[in-house]
């Protein structure tokens, strides 16, 4: 009963000054809308930039690095003593991963792993007339590469499955293709580092968004690459592992390195600068959003304060006819909260609408072939944070004016006239 009465009184006070109320609510609406839009846009951009690298990068990469032997013969002879060996050179060893088929099979069984894709890294020259362009051909399994690393997103022309279906085929990097003036259906010639020559049919173009990469990199199927290099069909230089939880990568890289006796690098180590960049951008967007909300909070504080000065007489009267200080306090808290909830809800809707508009603005750039519009992240977390923050700020904005209202001494007001 009492609560109902407090709500009735609050609503009457709100409606009596509906213009002020609306201004206060619009302040909240604006800041919440900007908050969710800003965060959505910032994070959409973050996801885009991270995705540029993260999507294309294995969480753990197993490979065989060219290194000097960690154990020199002298160590076996006198393991107790401190041995100094100078001018060590790496020995001629194969780049392939030993037992690659068994390792891949074992990793696939690991429940933490989303998928495994093999890869061969081959140094080649693209022959253009009399000129040889240096380049890299990646031998891949097109199906797995697409499933784990969204390969098809980056094949801007042609079909990536042709790599598998057409023997001796190649998907050329856009930069390479431009230099060679090659079109789909053309046959090009490459020379491997060992001097082998091979004719390959162009079935598509590849554009990663990183121009330096597109100028050297091309893709063939695993078997074509093996044939090109003249190696057996179990020759693999890299095993790319994608995990269910990217955060486990560093620990698992160490584990794999130990158990399979290869080198392993995790994504955090390979691309640490991206982590830093995105967290800094997030902090900035949160800071701006929170500032907006606090400014809106001060707006509400001011309006409630003014309302209390205007309503001094009414408050005194309500106290004289039997409303306690607590009742008056509740009335003003209710007013603040209803401004917050109404403004906040409107703000969330406006933010969603604004995000949607941004999401539909065309955004075409050479380097990002898959992106057609500005990126937006519709993470519900931003909306939840916005909603909670709007209520918390308005509560505190209402708290002090309400306390002041509840402490008004009716005698002073009534006798003051």
């Amino acid at each position, binding site marked *: 009963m*009492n609560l109902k009465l407090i709500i009735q009184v609050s609503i009457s006070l709100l409606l009596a000054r509906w213009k002020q109320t609306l201004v206060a609510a619009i302040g909240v609406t604006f800041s919440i809308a900007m908050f969710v839009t800003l965060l959505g846009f910032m994070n959409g951009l973050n996801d885009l930039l991270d995705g540029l690298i993260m999507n294309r990068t294995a969480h753990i990469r197993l490979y065989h690095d060219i290194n000097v032997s960690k154990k020199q013969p002298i160590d076996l002879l006198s393991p107790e003593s401190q041995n100094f060996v100078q001018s060590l050179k790496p020995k001629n060893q194969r780049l392939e991963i030993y037992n690659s088929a068994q390792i891949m099979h074992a990793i696939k069984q690991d429940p933490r792993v989303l998928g495994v894709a093999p890869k061969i890294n081959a140094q080649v020259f693209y022959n253009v007339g009399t000129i040889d362009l240096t380049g890299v051909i990646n031998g891949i399994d097109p199906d797995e590469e697409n499933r784990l690393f969204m390969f098809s997103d980056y094949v801007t022309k042609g079909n990536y499955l042709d790599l598998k279906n057409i023997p001796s085929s190649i998907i050329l990097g856009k930069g390479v293709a431009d230099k060679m003036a090659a079109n789909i259906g053309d046959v090009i010639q490459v020379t491997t580092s060992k001097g082998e020559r091979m004719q390959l049919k162009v079935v598509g173009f590849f554009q990663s968004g990183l121009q330096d990469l597109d100028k050297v990199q091309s893709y063939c199927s695993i078997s074509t690459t093996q044939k090109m290099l003249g190696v057996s069909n179990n020759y693999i230089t890299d095993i790319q592992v994608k995990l269910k939880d990217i955060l486990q990568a560093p620990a698992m890289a160490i584990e794999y390195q130990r158990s399979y006796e290869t080198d392993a690098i995790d994504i955090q180590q390979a691309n640490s600068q991206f982590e830093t960049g995105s967290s800094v951008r997030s902090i900035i967007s949160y800071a701006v959003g929170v500032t907006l909300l606090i400014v809106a909070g001060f707006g509400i504080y001011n309006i409630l304060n003014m309302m209390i000065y205007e309503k001094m007489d009414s408050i005194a009267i309500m106290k004289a006819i*039997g409303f306690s200080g607590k009742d008056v306090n509740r009335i003003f808290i209710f007013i603040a909260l209803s401004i917050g909830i109404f403004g906040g809800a409107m703000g969330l809707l406006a933010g969603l609408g604004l995000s949607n508009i941004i999401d539909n603005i065309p955004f075409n750039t050479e380097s990002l072939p898959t992106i057609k519009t500005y990126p937006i992240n519709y993470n519900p977390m931003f909306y939840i944070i916005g909603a909670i923050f709007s209520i918390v700020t308005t509560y505190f904005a209402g708290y002090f004016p309400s306390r002041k209202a509840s402490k008004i001494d009716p005698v002073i007001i009534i006798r003051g006239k």
Partner: protein
Amino acid sequence: MTHSHKEVLRAHKITKSFHDPMTVKVLDDISFSLNQSEFVSVIGKSGCGKSTLLYILSTMDTDYEGDLYIDAVLMGDKSEKELARVRNEKIGFVFQFHYLLNEFNVLKNVMLPGLKLGQYSEKEIEHRAYEKLKVLGIEHEALKMPNQLSGGQKQRVAIARALINDPLLIMGDEPTGNLDKKNSEIVFHTFQQLAEEFQQTLLIVTHDNEFANKTSRIIEMQDGKIIN
């Protein structure tokens, strides 16, 4: 007859001082009691402390020495919330200015203390509010906003509001002080009618001797003391 002599309010040695800028005793050792269905006026020159006394008796001012009993209950050790409840339930207040809430219509203004008390349902309170307005002859103004009424009408609405919870005691602080002669008469007759027909206890502070002379008992104050 014994019923009508029930003690409604008793002040025992009430003393109040203002300390700013220097200590001045505004009320000095005030003791008196008020029985049911008495129509009492408090008179005195301006500054004699009669309004101050009224606000202490109404429980709104708690800064005093001495004891105040309302309905034989000591007010001194009650909390702010309990005092609000006492005002709501047992005291009806009529001020010099009408002090209606402009955000509500006349009916809602009258109903508000009733809704706060929560003793009856909203329907019933509305019905009772109409009855009170009828007693005061302004039931046809029920749905107007306070600022559409004349001064006399507003004051009668304020009286209706004071009556809504059937209070033990109605207090008035110069309730006719801001009205012309005709409206003053109307308000006085309303009080008189309440006293005679409904045995309502009334304590009215006034500086209008004519008004006071028509009441059943006059308390005269001077320099913070009751002299008569």
